[in-house]
């Protein structure tokens, strides 16, 4: 039977069509022609049927033919009129001998680049910088006049907080990098960019701090990025899936954030940040599992509060993974493991319930997930309606109708809240997903099954790597002193070292022994 099954699997695999490699028609490798008319014609044919691309022919200094090509909406049209057309269309008293020189020295435009390749011209036009073609020149001039509508800097929606910066990344790469630069003013902050996506030509930038980061990490990241050949990158999630270490894992091995302060904190610990154009979510690599259950506010609050909240998160991490399965296991196999009066109450409330505990748990958990998902996608106005329906239907009506027992509703509610405790949404959702196999195991094998599941998950976590860094570090392999930022949050004056695995090349981040120890009033006298 197994052989047949595997044959089946193999067959379906073989039917998969071969990936077409590099069929990019829009990438002519030619240089520009010497003939002006031919160049214009080439561009016209490239931009055939593109109603948003404008060709504006004019006479340079009243005699030489020239054309400026730009895309409506991506280019600063006032800028073109004021700084390009008006000085160039003037008929000056003494015509400059070299147009090249005039453009470079006398045009009031910040960047003017001479572009020889047709492909580069197209790229320049696509990114909003108009191209100026001039009769007698075998090159175009790219003018830095890109300007398009951008969303302003707003509060990060997915990662709110009480204390800390309220600025979030947005869809524009320039704004994002500028936010990093505004926080880290040192020139050691390096930002390397490349374009990925045959059609979208999305700019992807890798930011890191020279001297803190391990150079091999940057090489590895750029190598993995360079290997990507894809039609388009619409979100950093594409990149994440294409470059992570173990694609078959429910746990994310690259963290995403829309907060510049989180990105910078990670840069300062020797990690790299990958910024992708078109999404506010930047990627951070490498990470460990514990990065996912830490929040930026842990570091902004007093260290005792931060530590307390971290411990709370550990507890609720366990609850969100195990509570429903424990409930099912105890109710189907281990009735003696709960206090008598609790069992009596549970058995009384379950008396009218027609389903076995495992079915009840699955129904409730699936309903909860559906409600959550519905609430996320719906517009805000309808979202509240969903929550009311959810609370009434799964909370009250189902209990009153005797379909579900009240303790089960409590268990599901606590589990739901527990999974929202995870500061990283992706980590919470991974645990929520693993809950279902755990419930099945609990319903069939009891506590034994739960233990098997937990062991399997722990083994899996131990085997994971994020760009070569063990996923459970510094707990496994154990690095005692590194636990200062994992099991608790040490006060800032004690966090003298960076995490060893990412910041080894420059271990000390601050001067030692900075614990505030002011003299008392009487001693100063």
């Amino acid at each position, binding site marked *: 039977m197994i052989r047949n099954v595997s044959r089946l699997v193999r067959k379906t695999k073989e039917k998969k069509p071969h990936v077409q490699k590099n069929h990019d028609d829009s990438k002519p490798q030619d240089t520009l022609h010497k003939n002006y008319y031919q160049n214009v014609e080439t561009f016209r044919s490239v931009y055939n049927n593109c109603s948003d691309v404008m060709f504006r022919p004019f006479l340079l200094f009243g005699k030489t033919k020239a054309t400026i090509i730009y895309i409506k909406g991506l280019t600063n049209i006032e800028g073109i009129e004021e700084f390009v057309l008006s000085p160039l269309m003037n008929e000056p008293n003494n015509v400059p001998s070299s147009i090249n020189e005039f453009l470079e020295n006398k045009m009031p435009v910040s960047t003017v680049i001479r572009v020889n390749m047709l492909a580069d011209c197209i790229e320049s036009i696509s990114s909003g910088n108009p191209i100026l073609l001039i009769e007698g020149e075998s090159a175009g001039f790219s003018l830095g006049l890109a300007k398009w509508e951008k969303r302003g800097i707003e509060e990060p929606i997915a990662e709110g907080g009480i204390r800390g910066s309220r600025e979030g990344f947005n869809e524009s790469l320039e704004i994002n990098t500028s936010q990093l630069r505004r926080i880290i003013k040192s020139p050691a902050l390096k930002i390397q960019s490349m374009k990925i996506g045959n059609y979208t030509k999305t700019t992807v930038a890798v930011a890191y701090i020279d001297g803190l980061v391990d150079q091999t990490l940057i090489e590895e990241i750029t190598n993995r990025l360079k290997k990507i050949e894809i039609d388009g990158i619409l979100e950093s999630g594409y990149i994440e899936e294409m470059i992570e270490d173990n694609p078959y894992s429910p746990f994310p091995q690259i963290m995403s954030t829309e907060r510049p302060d989180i990105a910078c904190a990670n840069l300062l610990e020797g990690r790299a940040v990958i910024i992708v154009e078109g999404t506010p979510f930047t990627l951070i690599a490498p990470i460990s599992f514990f990065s996912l259950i830490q929040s930026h506010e842990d570091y902004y609050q007093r260290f005792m509060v931060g530590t307390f909240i971290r411990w709370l998160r550990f507890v609720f991490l366990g609850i969100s993974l195990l509570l429903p399965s424990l409930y099912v296991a105890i109710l189907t196999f281990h009735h003696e493991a709960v206090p008598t009066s609790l069992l009596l109450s*549970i058995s009384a409330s379950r008396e009218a319930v027609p389903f076995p505990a495992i079915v009840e748990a699955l129904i409730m958990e699936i309903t909860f997930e559906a409600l959550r998902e519905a609430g996320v996608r719906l517009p805000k106005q309808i979202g509240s309606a969903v929550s009311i329906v959810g609370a009434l239907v799964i909370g009250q009506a189902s209990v009153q109708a005797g379909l579900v027992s009240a303790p089960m509703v409590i268990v599901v509610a606590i589990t739901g809240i527990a999974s929202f405790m995870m500061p990283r949404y992706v980590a919470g959702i991974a645990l929520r997903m693993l809950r279902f196999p755990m419930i099945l195991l609990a319903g069939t094998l009891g506590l034994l099954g739960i233990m098997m599941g937990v062991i399997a998950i722990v083994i899996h976590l131990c085997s994971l790597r994020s760009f070569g860094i063990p996923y459970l570090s510094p707990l496994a392999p154990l690095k005692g002193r590194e636990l200062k930022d994992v099991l608790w949050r040490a006060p800032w004056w004690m966090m003298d070292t960076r995490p060893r695995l990412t910041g080894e090349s420059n271990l000390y981040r601050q001067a030692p022994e900075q614990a505030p120890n002011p003299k008392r009033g009487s001693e100063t006298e």
Partner: protein
Amino acid sequence: MEKGKGRLFMKNILLLILICGVTLIVSGCWDRVEVNDLAIVTAAAIDKKDDNQIELSLQVFIPKALSGGGSEGGGGMSGGGAVTMVASHKGSNISDALSKLQSEFPRRVFWGHCKVFIFGEKLAKAGIQEHLDFLLRHPQPRERAYVYVSEGKAKPILELLAPLERYSAEGLRELSDLHIGMKVTLQDLDEKLIGIVQAAALPIVDIHPPGKGQEKLQGEPYIAGTAVFKKDKMIGNLTEKETRGILWIRNEIEAYTVTFKPGAEKGEISINPIKASVKLVPEIRNKKWIMVVKIDTEGTIIQNGTNLNLSSPKSIKVVEKAFEKEIEKRIELAFQQTQQELKTDILGFGEEFSRKYPDKWKKNKGRWNEIFPEIELETEIKAHIRRQGYITKPGGMPEKEVKEQ
């Protein structure tokens, strides 16, 4: 190369999921028992019947009775009604009776939460060993369940509808936890019976008859004394007062008020011992076996019916002396009873001697039943009164009448 590896991995994963899924479906969950299918036994009583048979009675929880609202809109639930029922059946032993009982019972009998076992007096006198065997061998009954002997038949105790607790067994268990009487678990009983002196003591349960206006079954079970077992047979009992003395010697006294007359004064004083350390020091002097009971206790005054001013050290001394006397009296009473009347070492003296004098114990092990009635008891009691409560002078008494001593 890499893609091939991934494909293989996917294939393996698919296979694994398939196999796991099939195992789950094919095997089913054969041990699975829903709570709805359980008859949760809260207490069990075993009585002896005439024709060499026993009667097993189980107090079983009725979930329907508690689930007030429920699907039917909560109709017909008598408030404060019975949440348990008693099912009983005769048989030649527990397992026989149980199997017969089960055949008439729609739910599976579940012992896991049975915390009270009551042996009928008749059965206790005939011997409990074979029944203990069932309870200890079966995986479900808890070894930390409490064991009792009933005054008369045991079944009526289960039938009681305790007004205060959910069911009568719960009330009995709470009573034991208060430590007013003897508190013996299944495991303690087993250890005592297989121990070196083979004697055990179990609390006796009696029914406090229902008061006026209460229904017939609304009595409360209470602990009325101690049953003394030699080997596995009950040979006699101790009254409540004698039980206190036993508890003093066994260092199990907890929440019990001692009321006594201090010296020549009028009126009585009540003291609650807060802390007591009891040491049994066995000695063999001139071939005489002597047990020295050293007690160091601290008490708090909870009522002062005399005219003593308890803030003065002198009067405290008087009260302390009287307190010591009272404890001594109780201990001696209990000792007398166990030594002279019952001739059974439920106090654990044998163990103390065997620890201190292992050689002599080995020689005289067989004669312990003869030695025990001749042991002399010496007491060294130190009582301290540490707290007087909120007031120091007798409450509600004019200054003139207070006696400063």
